[in-house]
């Protein structure tokens, strides 16, 4: 680590980052991934209506975005939907994960497989499916008071987010030492107490990670929401899409930037919780956490 800066060693066999072809490919990948996003974010601060000509720094489109009432309503709708769908996905997903981990039952493989379907099926198919479902099977009544009018979208969001929660929680359960649960029961805990006292604390990081994942998935979903949303239930991504159809304004840029920041922040938090759980799984000894 602390070698003298004057002496430069040739790259070691596994020090790929010090070889120029790898460095180049990293730069190219970074440009492809982030250049469009950065351009969009940059022009949200543009003084001019143009989104191609830079004329000066300004926050006026952020102000405009915050004054656009229908945009604010859409944003609030999105947050509400995300909140409820996260809550339901968390409970359903965690329960599914625990059932699949804990018990042996007939059709377990089938259940396991079908749970992954919403993850792999193209969103558009899921969207069309939801459209037909809410038109024919479960027509969601129109004109309900807020937030009941968002029910159909919430149900749709739960159906594609809970498998993600289940996958994350199940991965964490894989590192659970079953003897802990047995020890709790041996000491007098009922099945339920053992679950609450020992299993839940162990999977807590994955519950947080799963919840944040479900939240971001719901917040920026467009396709499925577009097919299930009624005329009076516009969400943020759908609203942005309708604004872009007329013209791309810095206001859209500003709104999108806010969404990106929120999403990135939540994803970062999710990864952090998952990461810390992966680090501590099966780890014994070492520096313990301080109280």
């Amino acid at each position: 680590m602390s070698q003298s800066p004057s002496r430069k060693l040739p790259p070691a066999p596994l020090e790929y980052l010090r070889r120029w072809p790898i460095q180049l490919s990293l730069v190219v990948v970074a440009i492809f991934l982030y250049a469009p996003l950065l351009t969009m974010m940059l022009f949200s601060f543009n003084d001019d209506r143009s989104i191609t000509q830079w004329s000066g720094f300004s926050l006026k489109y952020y102000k405009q975005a915050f004054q656009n009432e229908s945009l604010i309503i859409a944003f609030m709708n999105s947050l509400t939907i995300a909140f409820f769908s996260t809550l339901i996905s968390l409970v359903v997903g965690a329960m599914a994960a625990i059932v699949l981990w804990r018990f042996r039952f007939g059709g377990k493989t089938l259940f396991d497989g079908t749970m992954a379907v919403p993850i792999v099926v193209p969103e558009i198919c899921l969207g069309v499916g939801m459209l037909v479902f809410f038109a024919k099977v479960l027509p969601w009544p129109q004109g309900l008071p807020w937030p009941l009018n968002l029910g159909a979208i919430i149900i749709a969001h739960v159906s594609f987010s809970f498998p993600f929660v289940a996958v994350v929680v199940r991965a964490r359960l894989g590192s659970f030492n079953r003897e802990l649960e047995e020890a709790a029961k041996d000491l007098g805990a009922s099945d339920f107490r053992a679950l609450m006292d020992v299993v839940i604390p162990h999977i807590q990081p994955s519950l947080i990670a799963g919840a944040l994942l479900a939240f971001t998935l719901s917040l920026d979903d467009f396709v499925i929401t577009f097919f299930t949303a009624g005329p009076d239930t516009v969400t943020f991504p759908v609203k942005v899409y309708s604004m872009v159809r007329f013209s791309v304004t810095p206001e859209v840029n500003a709104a999108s930037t806010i969404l990106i920041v929120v999403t990135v922040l939540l994803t970062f938090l999710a990864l952090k919780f998952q990461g810390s759980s992966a680090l501590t799984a099966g780890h014994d000894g070492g520096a313990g956490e301080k109280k």
Partner: protein
Amino acid sequence: MTKPIIQFENVSKRFGKVSAVDNVSLTINEGEFFSLLGPSGCGKTTLLRMLAGFEMPTEGRVMIDGKDMSTTAPNLRPVNMVFQSYAVFPHMTVLDNVAYGLKMDGVPGDERRRRAEEALELVKLGGFGPRKPDQMSGGQRQRVALARALVKKPRVLLLDEPLSALDAKLRDQMRTELTTLQEKVGITFIMVTHDQDEALAMATRCAVMNRGLLQQVASPSDLYEFPNSRFVADFIGSVNMFEGTLDVDEPDHAIINTKDVGPIYLDHGVTGATGTTVWAAVRPEKIEMHKRTDKPPKVEDAPEGYNVIAGVVKHLVYLGSETIFEVEINGGSLVKVVRPNLTRWDQEDFTWDEKVWLSFHACSPAVLLS
């Protein structure tokens, strides 16, 4: 004094088609330090888990304290367990870990705390209460697991391979500590282990299991000196096994005619029909080694009551306190001999390819019928 506390009555446990425990009947008395011993997969852990309530017998009954508890849930049994991984709850402090069982029993907070601290004192962890398990060593975590199980004052304490995760020095220390602890608290201990040394050193009585079957239940010395089968003789310690036919069987002596070493003379009768195949098992430390010259041996030279075999030293393992010799005998097979190094020069007494006499007393071989 010998009041039965655990009774297995014709207990069998099958997982699908695999029979883990096969028709085991066993009584364990109050106050015993009982050990279930056997190779991995022999069913000893399954037997222990049936006591704890994590497995239910397919057939037969498990009685604890005179009550049939075959299907009682683990949280309703008067037994507690120390798990192989210790299973100390990582998100609780040491004190909370120990107090957990009392909390489940509804013991009020003050008493809970007092008793948990007492239990920690008992396992020499006084003052460690506020620590988290990941700030403790493996040995300390095991003590937490012990305190946590003992604090509930169970009728029986179950220990699943308690010493297997400790390093050698600590293991020796914990052996003594566990036996002292057992005498102190007076609770029946039942320990599962695959380590014969551990079982011999700690238990008052052992059950040797193999493939789900109970092979022998006896005190450690009886297991070692009077094994009832080739499996037990071979599993406990090391042994030289000579196969032969029972030629003479009188009340005061018997002769086994073996392929490898010729006739083996025994100074006691054997309960077997003459002409049947039997095995004579001789422990390596019960064989003495003497120098041999080229002169052919005379029968009257052999000390009375001893069997004498001619051989040549083939391998030699110096272990400091003792030396292990492998001696080739006429039949071509190798006989293991352990010789304590009584003086500092003893190790030089015998060397490779040296001709030796092996002798063992007529009472030394254990005669095995199966």
